[in-house]
């Protein structure tokens, strides 16, 4: 049975452990061949920010791991447009996450799609399981 799983990420990458432990679930969950998507909302959009540097806070910079998601066939990554805008960010401030599309001669394609809140709500409505972190 294939279910639709959405991982909803709402918190900044550091300050709490939720972003890191969410990513751990996503990576383990990828082995289960479910229909997986990730959504980044509120301060969660900072999880995808480029050029993260954690030297001054003594924590592990785990942001490179997001770049591996494409290899795990996790390639539906939705970013809430309003959350970006409220924080003065654009998609160019985010890591360029990509995946290779096996149905299109392994062409490299962007995984991130910026969506309006209404579309995100519609996507949530389709899900069987939403895990919010």
């Amino acid at each position: 049975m294939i279910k639709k799983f959405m991982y909803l990420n709402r918190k900044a990458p550091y300050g709490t452990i939720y972003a890191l432990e969410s990513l751990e679930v996503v990576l383990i969950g990828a082995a289960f061949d479910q229909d997986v998507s990730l959504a980044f909302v509120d301060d969660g959009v900072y999880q995808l920010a480029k050029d993260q540097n954690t030297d001054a806070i003594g924590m592990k910079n785990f942001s490179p791991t997001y770049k591996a998601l494409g290899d795990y066939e996790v390639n539906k990554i939705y970013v809430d447009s309003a959350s970006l805008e409220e924080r003065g960010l654009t998609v160019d401030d985010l890591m360029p996450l990509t995946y290779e599309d096996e149905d299109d001669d392994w062409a490299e394609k962007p995984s991130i799609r910026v969506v309006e809140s209404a579309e995100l709500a519609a996507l949530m409505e389709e899900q069987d399981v939403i895990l919010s972190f």
Partner: protein
Amino acid sequence: MKYGIVVNTGPYTHQASDSAYNFTAAALGKGHEVFRVFFYHDGVNNGTRLGVPPQDDRNLPEKWSALAEKHRLDLVVCVAAAQRRGVLDADEAKRHGKSADNIAPGFRISGLGQLIEAGIEADRLVVFGD
């Protein structure tokens, strides 16, 4: 209805684990099935037997243990989250050279795959705590 339950906060600081316990007990009382209760983040702290709350307060780990014994409930503590926070069973303590274990009766330590499986198997996955 077949439920999966996720508990993301520790006992006492937040009411969420009380709410999760009450929901689980009520669902079982009404004859529903609870496929699994999965403890993640600080929720793993529901699975230590070494807490000593005041005598006139509830002891949540003991309540979970009693519920598990009564209903053969599957209480699973995430291994990665538990290792970070010092929740260990005897095998884990031995493997990591620690002097003691603290897992409460009725709880078992396993991987995040158990959370995903609960999401797949349950009709509803209900999450408690932020």
